[in-house]
């Protein structure tokens, strides 16, 4: 079955995005890549042309025009913020800049970034307003969202099955089984899974630490403090955006993740249990 498929790969979203579909549906790949590139352009923290940059520059309570995809991601980020009692938080840009995980955007020193997710209000399908300066980073959710959108585009273009893999955050659809190897926090390879009709995302920070003043930090934030996790986590879900976002919750607060995952049609992969079968 894998013989008649086309696989392509582009550098987008800060990683390698791979798309594979049956050869007959090869023409669906270009629009799927275009969709991911669009989402990357709208939600990039680094670019001054993105919707995030427009939201950073906006005056308090002004209505800011953003892409419908940005609305989709912000809506989900707000929902998850509430469902996880704030554990999933996209308003962590200030910490990530201070700790050196993100670059200082233009005008960073001109504002006090005191706002949080509750300050972000979605006005309609094209407008957002923010009541207090909030530095949003959608790095924990946009990649999964882009994978889902790419799958949607592939399906619309007639691909009956396939896989979209954005640097390990991936989704398999149709009558297709894909074998996925899980990388542990220490970068060794752990268990392997065969997945079907599912999205999978993993997260760890053991090898992504930075020293800030006297203490170690990571790109995972809980209550303004860094989360230093020894193990990697993997979440399987129907949608990649859920898998992607919930790995961050599982890293920061396993109890909260356990409570919320089932309601989101998602599951934490127990790596220890998998390892024991080897």
């Amino acid at each position, binding site marked *: 079955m894998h013989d008649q498929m086309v*696989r*392509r*790969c*582009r*550098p*987008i979203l*800060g*990683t*390698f995005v*791979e798309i594979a579909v049956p050869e007959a549906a090869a023409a669906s790949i270009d629009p799927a890549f275009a969709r991911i590139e669009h989402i990357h352009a709208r939600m990039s923290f680094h670019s001054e042309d993105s919707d995030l940059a427009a939201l950073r520059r906006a005056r308090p309570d002004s209505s800011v025009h953003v892409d419908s995809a940005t609305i989709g991601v912000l809506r989900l980020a707000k929902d998850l913020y509430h469902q996880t009692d704030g554990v999933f938080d996209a308003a962590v840009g200030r910490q990530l800049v201070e700790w050196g995980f993100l670059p200082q955007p233009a005008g960073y020193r001109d504002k006090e970034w005191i706002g949080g997710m509750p300050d972000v209000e979605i006005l309609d399908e094209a407008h957002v307003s923010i009541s207090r300066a909030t530095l949003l980073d959608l790095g924990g959710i946009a990649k999964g969202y882009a994978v889902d959108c790419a799958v949607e585009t592939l399906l619309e273009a007639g691909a009956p099955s396939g896989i979209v*893999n954005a*640097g*390990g*955050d*991936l989704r398999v659809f149709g009558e297709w089984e*894909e*074998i*996925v*190897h*899980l*990388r*542990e*926090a*220490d*970068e*060794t*390879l752990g*268990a*392997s*899974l*065969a*997945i*079907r*009709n*599912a*999205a*999978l*995302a*993993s*997260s*760890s920070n053991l*090898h*992504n630490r930075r020293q800030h003043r006297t203490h170690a930090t990571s790109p995972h934030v809980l209550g303004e403090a860094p989360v230093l996790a020894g193990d*990697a986590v*993997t979440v*399987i*879900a*129907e949608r990649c955006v859920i898998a992607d976002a919930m790995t961050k919750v599982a890293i920061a607060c396993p109890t909260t993740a356990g409570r919320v995952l089932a309601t989101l049609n998602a599951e934490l*992969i127990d790596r220890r249990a*998998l390892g024991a*079968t*080897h």
Partner: protein
Amino acid sequence: MAQFSYRIIPLAALALAVPAQATVYLTVEQAQNQMFPRQSLTPQFRTLTAEQVAAIRKASGESPLSRDLRAWRAADGGWFIVDEVVGKHEFITYAVSLDSSGAIRDVEILDYREAYGGQVRDPRWRQQFVGKRAGQSLKLGGEIRNVSGATLSCKHITDGVRRVLATYAVALAHA
């Protein structure tokens, strides 16, 4: 929507499922057809001079891996350039297409292979393959394909593309 499903793969089965080679996405010719459909491309291979290499390094902060520049001119004035980068573990060939003004149109990965077996560090895991597919198994850890965890960074490609743009400005723009 159908419920997702997954099952654990026994390692014996896995050894057979492991792809035998590093991942090849597109050949140079396939990438040319992809990026410049139905256009003739004329090879414009150059050997960069020491002065050009120095200018590229100054403009991009990156030194070319090779002085051989693999560039093709498209009928519409665009350019197709094949380049390589070496990361910590990986060795990547990629293609960049530029429009006639020298702006980037697309970047596609042609192939991706591991420079050495660095990423599969667990000796127990490696041991499973000894005598079965020795050597090939070491490629697995570095592949983009189907490894979930510690996200692979494409920073080397970003740096490489910046160098390709500097190369274009130095060696091709006034061709």
